[in-house]
């Protein structure tokens, strides 16, 4: 769905503050895929994804949506931004209408849709993020909890009915329940509605649970890509890049160092439980006792 070829981005070109944010990045993201992007602060994650919906223009290289160059002459970039929705960091700071419904309706109304269609989309989008339209729709966004506000902002992006959803640190500042709820809804949008998801996060645990493929950025370059099991199998390298591995992967690696033969690519608590019980059973048999 999205393809970047030799994408380079330089901010403030020709000024003393010139910084090269991306260098020669080539990648593809398929329709319906769930991709996690990880990288240290300043590695270029946010700059990269702002090219996916043409908010930024490459300094060199090309970005294609469904095979069409986003910066070719005559491209309707408003259509691009409908298809590729982007939820910025701390999106609740951009809520501004008097009611949640009005805020979510803002985008579709600007598309010039008739009012029935707008209202239908508002209800659908709020339901998708777990906010009952009758209960939350009439309320002021500023009366909501942090997690609810974040989900209302997500509904605003969903009301445009995008095919790809990009989330930049969607859980920052939320409590554990707020994190679980928003990521739960994102996971369902992917599984049940087939949305392609691009998730930028510092939480290795979230990437492990959700992403089918992981992209690793380091100082503006794409330095690794692969399934989460493959990426998290090399903790020393990730550490050198300012990153880490999921909690349960770390546990598995520590147990192996101590000689307990668990599988090396554990990602979740459920997998860790199975792996530990299995490894102890095997060792118990070889030692003649459990």
């Amino acid at each position, binding site marked *: 769905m999205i393809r970047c070829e030799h994408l380079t981005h330089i901010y403030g070109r020709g000024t003393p503050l010139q910084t090269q944010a991306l260098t020669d990045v080539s990648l593809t993201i398929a329709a319906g895929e769930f991709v996690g992007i990880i990288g*240290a602060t300043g590695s270029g994650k946010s700059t990269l994804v702002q090219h996916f919906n043409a908010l930024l223009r490459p300094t060199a290289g090309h970005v294609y949506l469904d095979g069409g160059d986003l910066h070719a002459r005559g491209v309707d970039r408003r259509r691009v931004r409908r298809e590729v929705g982007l939820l910025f960091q701390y999106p609740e700071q951009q809520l501004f209408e008097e009611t949640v419904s009005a805020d979510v309706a803002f985008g579709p109304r600007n598309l010039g849709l008739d009012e029935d269609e707008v209202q239908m989309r508002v209800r659908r989008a709020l339901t998708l993020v777990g906010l009952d339209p009758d209960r939350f729709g009439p309320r002021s966004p500023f009366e909501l909890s942090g997690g609810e506000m974040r989900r209302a902002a997500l509904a605003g992006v969903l009301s445009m009915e995008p095919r790809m959803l990009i989330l930049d640190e969607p859980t920052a*500042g939320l409590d*554990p329940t707020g994190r679980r709820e928003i990521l739960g809804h994102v996971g369902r949008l992917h599984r049940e509605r087939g949305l392609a998801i691009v998730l930028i996060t*510092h939480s290795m645990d979230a990437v492990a649970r959700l992403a089918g493929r992981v992209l690793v950025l380091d100082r503006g370059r794409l330095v690794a890509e692969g399934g989460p099991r493959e990426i998290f199998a090399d903790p020393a390298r990730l550490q050198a890049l*300012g990153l880490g591995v999921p909690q349960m992967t770390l546990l598995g690696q520590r147990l192996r160092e101590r000689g307990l033969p668990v599988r090396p690519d554990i990602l979740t608590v459920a997998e860790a*439980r199975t792996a530990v019980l299995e490894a102890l059973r095997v060792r118990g048999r070889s030692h003649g006792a459990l």
Partner: protein
Amino acid sequence: MVPPLITVRDLHHTYRSGTGSDTPALQGLDLDIYPGECLAIIGGNGSGKSTLAKHLNGLLVPTSGEVRVDGIDTRDPEAVWQVRQRVGMVFENPDNQIVAAVVEEDVAFGCENLGLPPAEIRDRVDRSLRAVGLESVRRHQPHQLSGGQKQRVAIAGVLAMRPRCLVLDEATSMLDPEGQREVLGTALRLSRQEGLALVLITHWMEEAAQADRVLVLAQGRIVLQGSPAEIFSRGSALARLHLEPPEAATLAGELAAAGLPVPPGVITIDQLVEILAPPP
């Protein structure tokens, strides 16, 4: 027993909204914080954590009740700088806390306001930068630093004031994993080496699990307190409070339920490794 450094008695705080619909943020808190201890404060969004933090160094004063730091009442307008010298805070956003154009000038900023002689300031800045491991970037400009380094500069600025207590209010939440490790590791080390009380306000349960004591807030009240092992063994109570145990604690519970000899109160990966694969 050592007397507490900070005492909080029946603390109430109400933010004045100006619309008449004032909501109480804190509703009668009692708390003692002791020298050298590491206290984690957790709670859902809006539970009052940050409001409580701002009372610990007089950024807010009680609507009713009392907060004393080293015996000084935070409501005494004459004593506000004595309170802030004793309790330093580092906040969430690394880009909002640095005021000077060069790292060492930033660290010196607070001391200069205390009116200390230049040689004393020099000495304190050197020691503080060494304590957070940033001597090598002393002449750098703040924008050249990573997020974790910026937060350590902020910690150094607090240390230069010779405080008794350091409060980290979600100071790692915007950092990458390396930055999180740097900042928390630095704070825990300083607390142990220098006898500094450390208050960690956090949404990351793995961080709270490293404290000596955990306080859980909900709707402006303390609803649970105890050791991390006690708090994080209570999965269902935590879920009602919008919290959850660290993954290691969840796994420990499941392994115990499956019949393995994992005792209650196991909440960290280190503990699990010792139990499941003890050294030969």
